[in-house]
């Protein structure tokens, strides 16, 4: 492993860099008091994750991820925050014990998660690595072949969500 690390430093460094950015920004999402900042940090996190996707050979997914999350969802978030005029930190502070408890239990979660996954049997990569899985062509065949029905169902879900959002958002419902 160490030889690999020496031999191919570029991707390794990219991994470290992206991970560092993602981790830091994620913390900032939670830590910053201004909601707008939070969302902006979240966007950076998403970009970092998209970078990971690229590293992992999932190019199409990376693109979609940016379009959907950073492009659509986060804009929606910002839009709503702006609309509500929440750009300042309006929230009163939670009790300090509660914060400790939250952080504590989160750490507990982390430990258990890591422990659980560590206990899993050693993973070995599939022998011939197929670099083409992340290509549109491949994804398309899988999506419209094996997962055609769930795909259609998810479209209904989206439609329902859309209708629901409009219905809820309407000002006065008779």
């Amino acid at each position, binding site marked *: *492993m160490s030889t690999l690390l020496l031999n*191919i430093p*570029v*991707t*390794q460094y990219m*991994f470290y860099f992206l991970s560092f950015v993602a981790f830091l920004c*994620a*913390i900032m*999402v*939670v830590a910053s008091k201004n909601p707008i900042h*939070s969302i902006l940090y*979240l966007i950076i*996190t*998403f970009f970092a*994750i998209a970078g*990971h*996707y*690229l590293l*992992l*050979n*999932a190019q199409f*997914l990376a693109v979609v*991820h940016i379009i*959907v*999350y950073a492009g659509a*969802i986060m804009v929606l*978030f910002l839009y*709503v*925050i702006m609309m*509500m005029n*929440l750009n300042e930190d*309006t*929230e*009163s502070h*939670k009790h300090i014990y509660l914060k400790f*408890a*939250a952080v504590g239990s*989160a*750490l507990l*979660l*982390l430990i258990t998660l890591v422990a659980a996954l560590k206990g899993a049997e050693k993973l070995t*990569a*599939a022998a011939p690595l*197929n*670099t083409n*899985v*992340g290509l549109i062509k491949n*994804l398309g065949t*899988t999506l419209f072949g094996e*997962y055609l029905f769930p*795909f259609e169902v*998810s479209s209904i*879900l*989206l439609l329902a*969500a*859309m209708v*629901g*959002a409009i219905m*809820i*958002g309407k000002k006065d419902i008779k």
Partner: protein
Amino acid sequence: MTGILLQSAIISTPIEWYILLSAALFTIGACGVMFKRNAIIIFASVELMLNAVNLLLVAFSSYHSDASAQVFVFFIMAVAAAEVAVGLAILSMIYRNVKSIDIDVLSKLRH
């Protein structure tokens, strides 16, 4: 070109690192959900958690050379989008009525 670059990425980085990263992101998300009171930030934290899972899925997908996991990521995205759309609509509705999205204020269900 990219293929070569990325092929080496998955070989060079053991899967455990991805696991660790996703776990960390997931935990941060959970932490945010737990101690923030602003409903929108809670939403954002949930998104973070979802993305942590997505990341793990993609990592395993590459590892096993299996496209299915990436398809699942699509579905998760779809669900996340739906959730955000409805959730934010509800929040704006609540804000319109209660003038707050502080979850501690929203404890009407109790009674």
